[in-house]
Protein backbone atom coordinates (compact mmCIF):
# COMPACT_ATOMS: atom_id res chain seq x y z
CA UNK A 1 0.00 0.00 0.00
CA UNK A 2 1.32 3.34 -0.93
CA UNK A 3 0.69 6.77 0.44
CA UNK A 4 -2.88 7.82 1.15
CA UNK A 5 -6.22 7.32 -0.50
CA UNK A 6 -9.44 9.26 -0.40
CA UNK A 7 -12.38 8.24 1.75
CA UNK A 8 -15.54 9.67 0.21
CA UNK A 9 -18.18 10.57 2.71
CA UNK A 10 -21.01 12.63 1.37
CA UNK A 11 -19.58 15.50 -0.59
CA UNK A 12 -16.29 15.65 1.32
CA UNK A 13 -13.05 13.82 0.57
CA UNK A 14 -11.03 12.66 3.59
CA UNK A 15 -7.55 11.30 3.16
CA UNK A 16 -6.65 7.97 4.81
CA UNK A 17 -2.94 7.82 5.60
CA UNK A 18 -0.62 4.86 5.63
CA UNK A 19 2.58 4.67 7.66
CA UNK A 20 5.98 3.13 7.26
CA UNK A 21 6.38 -0.47 8.30
CA UNK A 22 6.75 -0.78 12.07
CA UNK A 23 6.22 2.94 12.54
CA UNK A 24 3.08 2.53 14.63
CA UNK A 25 4.56 -0.18 16.83
CA UNK A 26 7.81 1.75 17.28
CA UNK A 27 6.00 4.97 18.09
CA UNK A 28 3.78 3.28 20.62
CA UNK A 29 6.71 1.64 22.40
CA UNK A 30 8.67 4.87 22.33
CA UNK A 31 5.75 6.75 23.83
CA UNK A 32 5.44 4.23 26.61
CA UNK A 33 9.14 4.44 27.39
CA UNK A 34 9.11 8.19 27.40
CA UNK A 35 5.99 8.18 29.54
CA UNK A 36 7.77 5.99 32.06
CA UNK A 37 11.02 7.86 31.98
CA UNK A 38 10.06 11.50 31.62
CA UNK A 39 8.22 11.98 34.92
CA UNK A 40 11.26 10.76 36.78
CA UNK A 41 13.10 13.90 35.79
CA UNK A 42 10.29 16.32 35.18
CA UNK A 43 7.49 16.19 37.72
CA UNK A 44 5.12 18.20 35.55
CA UNK A 45 5.60 15.69 32.80
CA UNK A 46 3.19 13.39 34.60
CA UNK A 47 0.44 15.62 33.24
CA UNK A 48 1.24 14.37 29.78
CA UNK A 49 -0.19 11.12 28.47
CA UNK A 50 1.97 10.34 25.49
CA UNK A 51 0.44 6.87 24.87
CA UNK A 52 -2.93 8.58 24.65
CA UNK A 53 -1.62 11.12 22.18
CA UNK A 54 -0.18 8.36 20.02
CA UNK A 55 -3.50 6.51 20.15
CA UNK A 56 -5.37 9.66 19.14
CA UNK A 57 -2.97 10.46 16.35
CA UNK A 58 -3.04 7.07 14.67
CA UNK A 59 -6.77 6.83 15.19
CA UNK A 60 -7.36 10.16 13.48
CA UNK A 61 -4.93 9.30 10.71
CA UNK A 62 -5.90 5.72 9.98
CA UNK A 63 -9.61 6.47 10.26
CA UNK A 64 -10.46 2.84 10.70
CA UNK A 65 -12.43 2.24 13.91
CA UNK A 66 -11.42 -1.41 14.18
CA UNK A 67 -7.69 -0.80 13.94
CA UNK A 68 -8.06 2.33 16.02
CA UNK A 69 -9.66 0.56 18.91
CA UNK A 70 -7.27 -2.39 18.66
CA UNK A 71 -4.31 -0.01 18.77
CA UNK A 72 -5.84 1.72 21.77
CA UNK A 73 -6.34 -1.64 23.44
CA UNK A 74 -2.76 -2.72 22.92
CA UNK A 75 -1.29 0.59 24.05
CA UNK A 76 -3.59 0.79 27.05
CA UNK A 77 -2.84 -2.75 28.19
CA UNK A 78 0.88 -2.15 27.79
CA UNK A 79 0.55 1.01 29.85
CA UNK A 80 -1.29 -0.96 32.49
CA UNK A 81 1.35 -3.65 32.42
CA UNK A 82 4.08 -1.11 33.10
CA UNK A 83 2.21 0.31 36.09
CA UNK A 84 2.23 -2.20 38.99
CA UNK A 85 -0.43 -0.33 40.97
CA UNK A 86 -2.94 -0.33 38.13
CA UNK A 87 -5.00 -3.44 37.26
CA UNK A 88 -4.79 -4.66 33.70
CA UNK A 89 -7.63 -3.16 31.73
CA UNK A 90 -8.05 0.18 33.46
CA UNK A 91 -6.27 2.25 30.82
CA UNK A 92 -6.90 -0.47 28.26
CA UNK A 93 -10.63 0.21 28.35
CA UNK A 94 -10.16 3.95 28.23
CA UNK A 95 -7.73 3.90 25.31
CA UNK A 96 -9.85 1.36 23.45
CA UNK A 97 -12.74 3.78 23.56
CA UNK A 98 -10.53 6.72 22.61
CA UNK A 99 -9.04 4.76 19.71
CA UNK A 100 -12.51 3.96 18.47
CA UNK A 101 -13.79 7.50 18.87
CA UNK A 102 -10.71 9.06 17.29
CA UNK A 103 -10.82 6.83 14.25
CA UNK A 104 -14.57 7.27 13.95
CA UNK A 105 -14.33 11.05 14.12
CA UNK A 106 -11.27 11.05 11.89
CA UNK A 107 -13.33 9.28 9.24
CA UNK A 108 -15.83 12.11 9.26
CA UNK A 109 -13.80 15.26 9.87
CA UNK A 110 -10.65 16.78 8.53
CA UNK A 111 -8.34 16.54 11.49
CA UNK A 112 -5.19 17.88 9.83
CA UNK A 113 -5.62 21.43 11.04
CA UNK A 114 -3.67 22.22 14.22
CA UNK A 115 -6.69 23.80 15.88
CA UNK A 116 -8.77 20.72 15.24
CA UNK A 117 -6.01 18.55 16.57
CA UNK A 118 -5.70 20.71 19.67
CA UNK A 119 -9.42 20.68 20.40
CA UNK A 120 -9.90 17.01 19.66
CA UNK A 121 -6.92 15.98 21.75
CA UNK A 122 -8.04 18.09 24.70
CA UNK A 123 -11.54 16.65 24.38
CA UNK A 124 -10.31 13.09 24.06
CA UNK A 125 -8.09 13.60 27.10
CA UNK A 126 -11.10 14.62 29.18
CA UNK A 127 -13.12 11.71 27.85
CA UNK A 128 -10.20 9.39 28.58
CA UNK A 129 -9.98 10.61 32.16
CA UNK A 130 -13.74 10.35 32.56
CA UNK A 131 -13.69 6.73 31.41
CA UNK A 132 -10.86 6.01 33.82
CA UNK A 133 -12.80 7.68 36.63
CA UNK A 134 -15.97 5.76 35.81
CA UNK A 135 -14.03 2.50 35.70
CA UNK A 136 -12.35 3.20 39.01
CA UNK A 137 -15.56 4.23 40.71
CA UNK A 138 -17.97 1.66 39.36
CA UNK A 139 -15.87 -1.39 38.70
CA UNK A 140 -13.05 -1.04 41.18
CA UNK A 141 -14.87 0.89 43.91
CA UNK A 142 -11.92 3.25 44.15
CA UNK A 143 -12.27 6.96 44.89
CA UNK A 144 -11.58 9.10 41.86
CA UNK A 145 -12.26 12.78 41.33
CA UNK A 146 -14.39 13.86 38.43
CA UNK A 147 -13.71 16.98 36.42
CA UNK A 148 -11.36 19.48 38.02
CA UNK A 149 -9.33 22.50 37.07
CA UNK A 150 -6.23 20.37 37.18
CA UNK A 151 -7.83 18.05 34.64
CA UNK A 152 -8.67 20.92 32.31
CA UNK A 153 -5.12 22.21 32.61
CA UNK A 154 -3.77 18.79 31.77
CA UNK A 155 -6.18 18.57 28.83
CA UNK A 156 -4.97 21.89 27.46
CA UNK A 157 -1.35 20.89 27.94
CA UNK A 158 -1.84 17.58 26.15
CA UNK A 159 -3.70 19.38 23.36
CA UNK A 160 -0.85 21.82 22.97
CA UNK A 161 1.78 19.11 22.97
CA UNK A 162 -0.30 17.11 20.51
CA UNK A 163 -0.18 19.95 17.97
CA UNK A 164 3.59 19.72 17.80
CA UNK A 165 3.84 15.98 18.33
CA UNK A 166 1.42 15.22 15.54
CA UNK A 167 3.50 17.32 13.15
CA UNK A 168 6.49 15.14 14.00
CA UNK A 169 4.44 11.98 13.57
CA UNK A 170 3.18 13.18 10.20
CA UNK A 171 6.70 12.56 8.98
CA UNK A 172 6.15 8.82 9.49
CA UNK A 173 3.44 8.81 6.85
CA UNK A 174 4.09 7.27 3.53
CA UNK A 175 4.16 9.81 0.79
CA UNK A 176 1.39 9.45 -1.74
Amino acid sequence: MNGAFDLRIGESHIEVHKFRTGAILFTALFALVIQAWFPLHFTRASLLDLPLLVTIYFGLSRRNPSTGLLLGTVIGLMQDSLTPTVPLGLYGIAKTIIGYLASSIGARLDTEHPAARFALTAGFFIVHQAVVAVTRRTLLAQPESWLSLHLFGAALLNGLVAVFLFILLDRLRRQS
Partner: protein
Amino acid sequence: MAAIPSRHKSLVLLAGIILLQVLLLAVQIKRDSQGRLIRTWTVGAVSPFERAGSYVFGSFRDTWRNYFALRGTKKDNDDLRRENDALKLRIAQLEGKAAEVDRLASLLHFRQSQADVPMVAARVIGRPPVNDSLTIELDRGEKDGIRRDMGVITPDGVVGKVIETYPHTAQVLLLTDKGSGVGAMLADSRIQSPVGGVGEPLVTMKYVPNDDDVSVGARVVTSGMDKIFPRDLPVGTITEIKPGNPFKQIRVKPAANLEKLEEVLVLLTLHPLKQSDSAAQSAPAAANAAPPQVSNP
Protein backbone atom coordinates in the same frame (compact mmCIF):
# COMPACT_ATOMS: atom_id res chain seq x y z
CA MET B 1 -27.60 -16.18 10.13
CA ALA B 2 -27.72 -12.48 9.23
CA ALA B 3 -24.37 -10.88 8.55
CA ILE B 4 -23.35 -7.92 10.67
CA PRO B 5 -23.16 -4.71 8.60
CA SER B 6 -19.57 -3.55 8.11
CA ARG B 7 -20.18 -0.25 9.85
CA HIS B 8 -21.36 -2.11 12.90
CA LYS B 9 -18.52 -4.60 12.97
CA SER B 10 -16.20 -2.12 14.63
CA LEU B 11 -18.88 -1.35 17.20
CA VAL B 12 -19.28 -5.03 17.98
CA LEU B 13 -15.52 -5.36 18.19
CA LEU B 14 -15.38 -2.39 20.55
CA ALA B 15 -18.00 -3.90 22.81
CA GLY B 16 -16.28 -7.27 22.78
CA ILE B 17 -12.87 -5.89 23.63
CA ILE B 18 -14.21 -3.67 26.37
CA LEU B 19 -16.11 -6.60 27.81
CA LEU B 20 -12.97 -8.72 27.78
CA GLN B 21 -11.05 -6.02 29.59
CA VAL B 22 -13.81 -5.55 32.12
CA LEU B 23 -13.63 -9.27 32.80
CA LEU B 24 -9.87 -8.97 33.01
CA LEU B 25 -10.33 -6.26 35.63
CA ALA B 26 -12.81 -8.35 37.51
CA VAL B 27 -10.47 -11.30 37.66
CA GLN B 28 -7.73 -9.16 39.15
CA ILE B 29 -9.61 -7.06 41.61
CA LYS B 30 -10.33 -8.46 45.03
CA ARG B 31 -12.57 -6.47 47.29
CA ASP B 32 -11.99 -6.75 50.99
CA SER B 33 -15.43 -7.88 52.01
CA GLN B 34 -16.74 -9.57 48.93
CA GLY B 35 -13.84 -11.52 47.45
CA ARG B 36 -12.80 -11.24 43.86
CA LEU B 37 -14.82 -8.88 41.71
CA ILE B 38 -15.39 -11.52 39.05
CA ARG B 39 -16.96 -13.71 41.71
CA THR B 40 -19.09 -10.83 42.95
CA TRP B 41 -20.21 -10.01 39.45
CA THR B 42 -20.83 -13.59 38.56
CA VAL B 43 -22.90 -14.12 41.65
CA GLY B 44 -24.70 -10.83 41.07
CA ALA B 45 -25.40 -11.77 37.47
CA VAL B 46 -26.46 -15.31 38.14
CA SER B 47 -28.35 -14.92 41.39
CA PRO B 48 -31.31 -13.00 39.86
CA PHE B 49 -31.81 -15.86 37.42
CA GLU B 50 -31.42 -18.31 40.26
CA ARG B 51 -33.98 -16.41 42.30
CA ALA B 52 -36.28 -16.15 39.32
CA GLY B 53 -35.83 -19.84 38.58
CA SER B 54 -36.35 -20.72 42.19
CA TYR B 55 -39.46 -18.55 42.30
CA VAL B 56 -40.88 -20.05 39.14
CA PHE B 57 -39.98 -23.57 40.20
CA GLY B 58 -41.35 -22.91 43.68
CA SER B 59 -44.57 -21.56 42.20
CA PHE B 60 -44.97 -24.61 40.01
CA ARG B 61 -44.10 -26.88 42.92
CA ASP B 62 -46.54 -25.12 45.24
CA THR B 63 -49.19 -25.15 42.58
CA TRP B 64 -48.58 -28.82 42.06
CA ARG B 65 -48.55 -29.61 45.74
CA ASN B 66 -51.49 -27.40 46.65
CA TYR B 67 -53.77 -28.19 43.75
CA PHE B 68 -52.87 -30.97 41.36
CA ALA B 69 -51.28 -33.24 43.93
CA LEU B 70 -54.39 -32.83 46.08
CA ARG B 71 -56.66 -34.37 43.49
CA GLY B 72 -56.63 -37.62 45.44
CA THR B 73 -57.00 -35.87 48.76
CA LYS B 74 -60.78 -36.05 48.75
CA LYS B 75 -60.64 -39.77 48.20
CA ASP B 76 -57.97 -40.10 50.88
CA ASN B 77 -60.09 -37.95 53.16
CA ASP B 78 -63.14 -40.09 52.53
CA ASP B 79 -61.10 -43.23 53.12
CA LEU B 80 -59.71 -41.80 56.34
CA ARG B 81 -63.18 -40.81 57.47
CA ARG B 82 -64.42 -44.31 56.81
CA GLU B 83 -61.43 -45.72 58.60
CA ASN B 84 -62.00 -43.31 61.48
CA ASP B 85 -65.64 -44.34 61.71
CA ALA B 86 -64.63 -47.99 61.63
CA LEU B 87 -62.07 -47.39 64.34
CA LYS B 88 -64.59 -45.50 66.46
CA LEU B 89 -66.97 -48.38 66.06
CA ARG B 90 -64.18 -50.79 66.90
CA ILE B 91 -63.32 -48.78 70.01
CA ALA B 92 -66.95 -48.78 71.06
CA GLN B 93 -67.08 -52.52 70.52
CA LEU B 94 -63.91 -53.03 72.53
CA GLU B 95 -65.17 -50.78 75.29
CA GLY B 96 -68.38 -52.77 75.32
CA LYS B 97 -66.43 -56.00 75.43
CA ALA B 98 -64.29 -54.64 78.24
CA ALA B 99 -67.39 -53.75 80.20
CA GLU B 100 -68.81 -57.14 79.38
CA VAL B 101 -65.64 -58.77 80.61
CA ASP B 102 -65.95 -56.84 83.86
CA ARG B 103 -69.54 -57.94 84.27
CA LEU B 104 -68.74 -61.52 83.42
CA ALA B 105 -65.84 -61.44 85.84
CA SER B 106 -68.21 -60.20 88.50
CA LEU B 107 -70.66 -62.96 87.64
CA LEU B 108 -67.88 -65.52 87.70
CA HIS B 109 -66.70 -64.27 91.06
CA PHE B 110 -70.20 -64.46 92.41
CA ARG B 111 -70.69 -67.87 90.85
CA GLN B 112 -67.47 -69.15 92.39
CA SER B 113 -68.46 -67.78 95.79
CA GLN B 114 -71.70 -69.74 95.53
CA ALA B 115 -70.24 -72.90 94.14
CA ASP B 116 -72.71 -75.14 95.91
CA VAL B 117 -75.73 -73.36 94.44
CA PRO B 118 -76.70 -74.52 90.98
CA MET B 119 -77.20 -71.57 88.71
CA VAL B 120 -76.81 -70.79 85.07
CA ALA B 121 -75.66 -67.61 83.46
CA ALA B 122 -77.80 -66.11 80.76
CA ARG B 123 -77.58 -63.18 78.44
CA VAL B 124 -80.37 -60.66 78.10
CA ILE B 125 -81.35 -60.76 74.46
CA GLY B 126 -84.44 -58.62 74.43
CA ARG B 127 -87.18 -56.62 76.02
CA PRO B 128 -90.81 -56.69 74.91
CA PRO B 129 -91.94 -53.76 72.82
CA VAL B 130 -94.55 -52.79 75.38
CA ASN B 131 -93.69 -50.03 77.76
CA ASP B 132 -95.77 -51.13 80.71
CA SER B 133 -94.48 -54.68 80.63
CA LEU B 134 -91.27 -54.79 82.63
CA THR B 135 -89.86 -58.06 81.39
CA ILE B 136 -86.69 -59.25 79.74
CA GLU B 137 -85.87 -62.18 77.52
CA LEU B 138 -82.95 -64.51 78.18
CA ASP B 139 -80.97 -66.61 75.77
CA ARG B 140 -81.39 -69.74 77.82
CA GLY B 141 -84.47 -71.82 78.39
CA GLU B 142 -85.81 -75.22 79.30
CA LYS B 143 -82.93 -77.10 77.71
CA ASP B 144 -80.67 -75.34 80.17
CA GLY B 145 -82.75 -76.38 83.14
CA ILE B 146 -84.69 -73.16 83.53
CA ARG B 147 -88.24 -73.48 84.78
CA ARG B 148 -91.04 -71.06 85.68
CA ASP B 149 -90.76 -69.19 89.01
CA MET B 150 -87.03 -69.60 89.22
CA GLY B 151 -85.25 -66.59 90.61
CA VAL B 152 -83.08 -64.35 88.47
CA ILE B 153 -80.33 -62.35 90.05
CA THR B 154 -77.10 -60.50 89.41
CA PRO B 155 -74.19 -60.23 91.80
CA ASP B 156 -75.75 -56.91 92.87
CA GLY B 157 -79.12 -58.31 93.81
CA VAL B 158 -82.54 -59.58 92.80
CA VAL B 159 -83.69 -59.07 89.24
CA GLY B 160 -86.99 -60.89 89.09
CA LYS B 161 -88.42 -64.31 88.39
CA VAL B 162 -88.95 -66.50 85.36
CA ILE B 163 -92.51 -66.29 84.15
CA GLU B 164 -92.26 -68.17 80.88
CA THR B 165 -89.87 -70.69 79.46
CA TYR B 166 -89.19 -71.94 75.99
CA PRO B 167 -86.70 -74.52 74.80
CA HIS B 168 -83.97 -71.97 74.24
CA THR B 169 -85.24 -68.77 75.80
CA ALA B 170 -86.99 -67.58 78.88
CA GLN B 171 -88.91 -64.49 79.92
CA VAL B 172 -88.29 -62.80 83.23
CA LEU B 173 -90.63 -60.49 85.13
CA LEU B 174 -88.59 -57.71 86.63
CA LEU B 175 -88.86 -56.79 90.26
CA THR B 176 -90.17 -53.35 89.32
CA ASP B 177 -93.23 -54.71 87.48
CA LYS B 178 -96.61 -54.15 89.11
CA GLY B 179 -97.23 -57.86 89.29
CA SER B 180 -93.86 -58.69 90.77
CA GLY B 181 -93.06 -59.41 94.39
CA VAL B 182 -90.37 -60.94 96.51
CA GLY B 183 -90.22 -62.00 100.11
CA ALA B 184 -87.89 -59.57 101.84
CA MET B 185 -86.71 -58.33 105.19
CA LEU B 186 -84.53 -55.63 106.63
CA ALA B 187 -80.99 -56.92 106.82
CA ASP B 188 -80.31 -55.50 110.29
CA SER B 189 -83.64 -55.64 112.16
CA ARG B 190 -84.84 -58.73 110.30
CA ILE B 191 -88.30 -57.14 110.00
CA GLN B 192 -90.01 -59.00 107.21
CA SER B 193 -92.20 -57.55 104.55
CA PRO B 194 -92.71 -58.35 100.89
CA VAL B 195 -91.33 -55.97 98.32
CA GLY B 196 -93.26 -55.38 95.12
CA GLY B 197 -93.07 -53.27 92.03
CA VAL B 198 -95.35 -50.42 91.10
CA GLY B 199 -94.23 -49.98 87.53
CA GLU B 200 -91.61 -47.40 88.48
CA PRO B 201 -87.89 -47.63 88.99
CA LEU B 202 -88.38 -47.84 92.76
CA VAL B 203 -90.16 -50.69 94.46
CA THR B 204 -92.13 -50.56 97.69
CA MET B 205 -91.86 -52.40 100.94
CA LYS B 206 -95.49 -52.91 101.73
CA TYR B 207 -96.19 -54.10 105.21
CA VAL B 208 -93.91 -52.51 107.77
CA PRO B 209 -95.89 -51.34 110.75
CA ASN B 210 -95.52 -47.75 111.87
CA ASP B 211 -94.17 -48.95 115.17
CA ASP B 212 -91.12 -50.57 113.67
CA ASP B 213 -87.93 -48.60 113.49
CA VAL B 214 -86.84 -48.24 109.90
CA SER B 215 -84.27 -45.87 108.58
CA VAL B 216 -83.43 -44.57 105.14
CA GLY B 217 -80.42 -46.39 103.76
CA ALA B 218 -81.26 -49.65 105.46
CA ARG B 219 -80.53 -52.70 103.38
CA VAL B 220 -83.32 -54.95 102.27
CA VAL B 221 -82.56 -58.61 101.56
CA THR B 222 -84.61 -61.61 100.56
CA SER B 223 -86.29 -63.52 103.34
CA GLY B 224 -86.68 -66.85 101.50
CA MET B 225 -90.37 -66.98 102.41
CA ASP B 226 -91.50 -66.82 98.77
CA LYS B 227 -89.78 -70.10 97.99
CA ILE B 228 -88.25 -68.48 94.97
CA PHE B 229 -85.23 -66.62 96.26
CA PRO B 230 -82.95 -67.89 98.98
CA ARG B 231 -82.50 -65.80 102.08
CA ASP B 232 -80.17 -62.84 102.41
CA LEU B 233 -79.98 -61.99 98.75
CA PRO B 234 -79.72 -58.18 98.28
CA VAL B 235 -82.98 -56.63 97.17
CA GLY B 236 -82.25 -52.95 97.56
CA THR B 237 -81.80 -49.98 99.82
CA ILE B 238 -84.48 -47.89 101.46
CA THR B 239 -84.52 -44.40 99.97
CA GLU B 240 -87.75 -42.92 101.31
CA ILE B 241 -89.99 -43.53 104.30
CA LYS B 242 -93.38 -41.97 104.87
CA PRO B 243 -95.81 -42.70 107.61
CA GLY B 244 -98.91 -44.54 106.47
CA ASN B 245 -101.99 -46.11 107.81
CA PRO B 246 -101.48 -48.68 109.11
CA PHE B 247 -98.14 -49.33 107.43
CA LYS B 248 -95.23 -47.17 106.49
CA GLN B 249 -94.83 -46.22 102.86
CA ILE B 250 -91.28 -47.34 102.16
CA ARG B 251 -89.57 -46.88 98.81
CA VAL B 252 -86.67 -49.12 97.95
CA LYS B 253 -84.11 -48.67 95.25
CA PRO B 254 -83.36 -52.09 93.71
CA ALA B 255 -79.84 -53.29 94.30
CA ALA B 256 -79.53 -54.60 90.75
CA ASN B 257 -79.41 -52.09 87.93
CA LEU B 258 -82.56 -53.22 86.20
CA GLU B 259 -82.30 -50.57 83.52
CA LYS B 260 -79.07 -51.94 82.13
CA LEU B 261 -79.17 -55.66 82.46
CA GLU B 262 -77.01 -57.63 80.07
CA GLU B 263 -76.04 -60.79 81.90
CA VAL B 264 -77.90 -62.44 84.73
CA LEU B 265 -77.83 -65.63 86.76
CA VAL B 266 -80.80 -67.92 86.95
CA LEU B 267 -81.02 -69.81 90.22
CA LEU B 268 -81.74 -73.45 89.58
CA THR B 269 -82.48 -74.16 93.23
CA LEU B 270 -83.96 -72.57 96.31
CA HIS B 271 -81.09 -73.33 98.62
CA PRO B 272 -79.97 -70.43 100.81
CA LEU B 273 -77.15 -68.35 99.44
CA LYS B 274 -74.23 -67.19 101.44
CA GLN B 275 -74.01 -63.44 101.65
CA SER B 276 -71.29 -62.11 99.42
CA ASP B 277 -68.30 -60.26 100.86
CA SER B 278 -69.25 -56.99 99.28
CA ALA B 279 -72.75 -57.25 100.56
CA ALA B 280 -71.47 -58.05 104.02
CA GLN B 281 -69.14 -55.08 103.92
CA SER B 282 -71.73 -52.65 102.64
CA ALA B 283 -74.21 -53.56 105.31
CA PRO B 284 -72.54 -51.78 108.24
CA ALA B 285 -71.60 -48.88 106.02
CA ALA B 286 -75.20 -48.45 104.98
CA ALA B 287 -76.23 -48.68 108.59
CA ASN B 288 -73.75 -46.01 109.59
CA ALA B 289 -74.92 -43.72 106.82
CA ALA B 290 -78.54 -44.12 107.75
CA PRO B 291 -80.35 -40.92 108.80
CA PRO B 292 -82.37 -40.79 112.00
CA GLN B 293 -85.38 -43.07 112.03
CA VAL B 294 -88.74 -41.70 111.04
CA SER B 295 -91.03 -41.47 113.95
CA ASN B 296 -94.33 -43.16 113.91
CA PRO B 297 -97.45 -41.15 113.21
